[in-house]
Every structure is written in structure tokens, then in C-alpha cells.
């Protein structure tokens, strides 16, 4: 004891305390989507954080340059794989804007249905995973059940559970199967029950509230400056939604609300997403009610697959089909940017065409890239444990961020 109080004694120097540098990820259970955090910790406080992305880089943009215009669709499925149909829709809208065609109304409704189902699946995954990582495994299981039911719907419509490959330039591949509306209503009834149970388990839970509230917050000004979009921006109180700001497809004719938060912390982001699930179900119910009969592809042989009967019976159709498949559809030269509201925010496609059968450039504006880049701003000075809910609510999807 006497040594401790001797003059000139420096506690920190003698005990060698210095910031600890640790790696979190790339294969940490909470860093889903494969991302690495390089943390400098002072005790439990984060002093510095570096986010390293790129572990899931699959050269999406380069790969697109080697595919025909329609062949890109399976690759867009793998961008945000929790909400695959939304990526399909975004790419198709961009390509159609470049061509200058509008799809028939029934096709627009079908795209909205597929897109909103995908948004549901994306939100269920994200909220369930967020609950799981804060220790609520039961809530996760309930939302996985809800997602399974939504996937059953998607499967009967698109033909696959995860990688739908549903939309084509100038239309969609398949019409609604028989009994889809009844099946959907049954699913929504069950999903509402599960939503209630999920909300009841978490929203009055002291532990959950303490970990979500006032963590990972960002001010409205900062959020706009860092290019936030989607639920994370709306949680700050900015009512920006591409569906509302620049309505595409038939969103302008539908009745729904854009949920907005106030403070921009993790709890607001969570609640905004939770409410968006309800709004998506509202949109889907309206769509199933209002969907008009009619064709699901454009009436222009250049921008659609010929039907099998045409190919079998008609020589010209067959020749044209061979030409289209071997050379690709020739989209006129030009460039275009088209944004849609993805599950995470503004999902933009920037396409450049040289007039050939393949894209010259297909650039994606992933919403979670901007969100991830603001991670240091949100977690610096916070506890290490606050990193987990913040990262969950950012909802980094490796496939989309790294491409």
C-alpha cells in the first residue's frame, strides 16, 4: 500500500492500461452478412471503429456486362436476398424506362404484390434476427414462421422460395395461381396473430427497451447528410419514401401510410419496420381486391417472350425468338437511373446501354452501403453491447452492400 501513494506514481502507467484492439467478425454470429469491425475499446466503450466490407463481393456489376438484358434477373435476386423480388422490379423498371415502354396494369399490380411480399419477408427476417441477437429467441421463431408462410405464397406465385426470378423486361413470368387470394388472406390472418405475439413479447420488455432505446441514434440533419434512406431515415422523422415521393407502378392509387419515428434511435427504427409490416399487408389486401383482368406482358414482340404456341406454329415467331435469344434484346443506347423503395431504403439502378444485347454498365445504389458508412458516427463512444442492436437495425445485407 505504501508504494501506491509514493510521489510520482502513475496508476495507468504502472498497470499498463491501454485501449484494447479487437476484431469482431467477419464470422461473428451477430455480424450477419459477413462484415468485420475493427474495434478499439477503452473498457467497454468503443473509442474507434473501422468497418470492413467486401467479404461477399461477387462482381455483380461485372457479371451483368456478360449477361443478356434478361439474364441479369437471376443475379439481381442475389442482391438483397431477403427481399429478392424488389430487386427484380427495380431492374425491370430501369430497363423499361430506357426502352420507353409501360407494362399493362395487371402486370403492375402483380409486381406490387411480389414486391410487397418480398418486403414482408425482408422485414420479418430483420426484426426476427434483431430480437434473436438481443436474446429473444422465441420472438425470432414466431417471425420465422410468418416468413415461412409468406414464402409459401411467393413460391406458389414465382416458383422459388428465395431466388424468385419472377419479373422480366416488359412483364412478369406467371399470373396469379388459382386460389391465391384466399390463400393470401389466410396467411395474413395468421401473420397478424404472430405479429401481435411478437409485439407483446418485446414492446413491454424492460431488457429489450433498455437495449434499444437511445442507442445508435443519429440526428435528422446527419442522417440526410450521410445519405440515409428507408426505415432508418424515417425513424429520424423525415417522411421520405420513394413510393410517396415519386410514385411508380400503381402505388399512387393505393391507400397506405408511411410510418415515421421521431428520435432516430434503434427503438424508432424497430417500430417503423414493425409498422411497415402492417402497411405492406394493407397494400397487398387492396391489390388482391382491385387487380384488374388483362394481359401480364406488353403487347410488343420485341420486349416479350413469344408464347410456346406461337413458337410451335409460327415460323417467323420462331426465327425472331432465336434471334432474340442468341443476340439478346437490343435496348436503345442511353443511360437511365431508376429508384424504388427497397426493404432497406432507396434501391437504385443506373443502367447504360450501348444498343447491344448486353448492358454496358449496371450500377446498383444499395441502401445499406450509406447506412453502414455512418456506423462510426452512431456507435463511437457507446458501449460495445450497443453495437449489436445498431448493426441489426442498419440491416446490412452482404449481397447488396458488397455485390
Amino acid at each position, binding site marked *: 500500500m505504501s508504494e501506491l501513494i509514493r510521489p510520482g506514481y502513475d496508476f495507468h502507467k504502472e498497470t499498463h492500461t491501454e485501449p484494447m484492439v479487437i476484431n469482431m467478425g467477419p464470422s461473428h454470429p451477430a455480424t450477419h452478412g459477413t462484415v468485420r469491425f475493427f474495434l478499439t475499446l477503452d473498457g467497454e466503450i468503443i473509442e474507434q471503429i473501422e468497418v470492413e466490407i467486401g467479404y461477399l463481393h461477387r462482381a455483380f456489376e461485372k457479371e451483368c456486362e456478360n449477361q443478356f438484358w434478361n439474364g441479369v434477373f437471376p443475379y439481381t435476386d442475389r442482391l438483397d436476398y431477403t427481399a429478392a423480388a424488389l430487386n427484380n422490379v427495380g431492374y425491370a423498371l430501369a430497363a423499361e424506362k430506357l426502352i420507353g415502354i409501360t407494362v399493362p396494369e395487371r402486370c403492375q399490380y402483380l409486381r406490387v404484390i411480389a414486391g410487397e411480399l418480398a418486403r414482408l419477408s425482408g422485414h420479418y427476417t430483420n426484426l426476427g434476427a434483431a430480437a434473436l441477437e438481443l436474446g429473444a429467441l422465441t420472438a425470432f421463431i414466431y417471425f420465422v414462421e410468418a416468413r415461412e408462410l409468406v414464402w409459401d405464397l411467393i413460391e406458389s406465385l414465382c416458383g422459388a422460395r428465395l431466388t424468385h426470378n419472377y419479373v422480366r423486361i416488359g412483364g412478369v413470368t406467371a399470373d396469379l395461381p388459382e386460389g391465391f387470394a384466399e390463400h393470401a388472406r389466410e396467411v395474413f390472418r395468421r401473420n397478424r396473430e404472430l405479429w401481435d405475439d411478437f409485439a407483446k413479447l418485446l414492446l413491454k420488455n*424492460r431488457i429489450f427497451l433498455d437495449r434499444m432505446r437511445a442507442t445508435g441514434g443519429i440526428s435528422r440533419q446527419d442522417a440526410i447528410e450521410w445519405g440515409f434512406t428507408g426505415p432508418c431515415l424515417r425513424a429520424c422523422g423525415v417522411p421520405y419514401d420513394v413510393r410517396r415521393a415519386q410514385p411508380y407502378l400503381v402505388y399512387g392509387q393505393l391507400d397506405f401510410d408511411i410510418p415515421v419515428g421521431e428520435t432516430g434511435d434503434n427503438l424508432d427504427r424497430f*417500430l417503423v419496420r414493425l409498422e411497415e409490416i402492417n402497411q405492406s399487408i394493407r397494400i397487398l389486401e387492396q391489390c388482391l381486391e382491385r387487380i384488374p383482368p388483362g394481359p401480364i406482358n406488353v403487347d410488343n*414482340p420485341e420486349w416479350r417472350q413469344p408464347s410456346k404456341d406461337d413458337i410451335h406454329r409460327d415460323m417467323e415467331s420462331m426465327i425472331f425468338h*432465336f434471334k432474340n435469344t442468341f443476340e439478346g434484346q437490343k435496348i436503345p443506347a442511353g443511360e437511365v437511373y431508376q429508384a424504388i423503395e427497397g426493404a432497406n431504403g432507396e434501391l437504385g439502378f443506373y443502367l447504360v446501354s450501348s444498343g447491344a444485347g448486353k448492358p454496358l454498365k449496371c450500377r446498383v445504389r444499395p441502401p445499406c452501403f450509406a447506412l453502414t458508412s455512418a456506423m462510426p458516427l452512431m456507435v463511437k463512444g457507446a458501449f460495445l453491447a450497443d453495437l449489436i442492436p445498431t448493426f441489426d437495425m442498419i440491416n446490412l445485407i452482404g449481397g447488396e452492400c458488397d455485390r
Partner: protein
Amino acid sequence: MAIGIKKVDSNITLTLWERMYAPEIIRGLYITMRHFTVNLWGLALEALGRRDKRKIMTVYYPEETLTPPPAYRGRPVLVRAENGLEKCVACGLCEVACPPKCIKITGGERENGDRYPLTYELDGGRCIFCGFCEEVCPKDAIVMSAEWRELCEYGRARMVYQKEALLYPQRNLQKRINLIRSRYFGVSRYRGKA
């Protein structure tokens, strides 16, 4: 515009009753126990042979399998016509349209002049089940079957299917062929533009 703005209420305050822990724990347990009981009785009804009444999500896989919906895209297979010959004419459209380039065809010719695939190789390890081959095929010769079980193997080389492993009799695939023939229907034909 009918798109409104809805404010979410993040100002969740816990009352004294809710802060007392025990009532909240009982409420939470009520929810989880309700799910547990439903699942338990789902199992019991199963044992009593009333499978239609079950309310559980899980499937006992090897004993019980799911039937995928008609639109489902399983393993691509070649169609063997009623006369025992493959319908494929080795035109190569599927080879070109396949995004991961997993199909390799070498064409041959029969004595009567009909073309047929000498070899048809489909690399199941590369296939992404997108269905483009089925969509572009002008002869309904390759379709996506409903087969999804036991496609995994202990090596990539064993996933390469040769022509014999891919051929399926047409009568088993007739439903799928009818389905894809009903697609892209009801629109005008080629109108002299190339």
C-alpha cells in the same frame, strides 16, 4: 394522394404493474405456453391419425415430404417422348440463355435427318434453377421438374448429370409442359420487325 404519414409512438412507458416483473413474466409465459400447447396438441393429433387437423409448421422430413406448388422450379430434366427418343433437337438455345453456363451440348444427326443431342451435360453444381432453359426451349424438351430431394452429393464432379440421368418420360412431366405452354399467352405475334 392517399399515401399518408403515420407517427409511431416510441414513448413506451411502463406502468408500476408492468415494472413489477412478475406479472409481465406471467404474461410472457402465457404467450409462449399457448404456442407450446398448440404445438403439443398438433403432435398428439398427428399420432391419432388426424393429420388434416395439425397446426404445426414443422415437417418430419424423411417420413413426410412437402409437395411443391405447380409453379415450383426443381431440377431441370430432359423430356423423353412417347416413342422413347429425346425431344431435344440440340439447337443450343438453352446453352446460350443459361446465365451460369452450366449446359453443354454436342449435336448429332439420325439416319432420317433428325437432329438430336449426342451428349447433353448439365452441371448441377452450377445450375441456379432460374428456369431460363425451360422458358426459351422451342420444343418443350427441357423442363423444370418438381424434383428437389437429395440433389446434394459429396463432390462437384458427381453433380454433373449426363443425358441418361436427365431423361424423364413425358407422361410424368405433362402437367409442367401444359403450365409453361399457358404462359406468355394472349398477346400479338411477330409483326415483321427484326
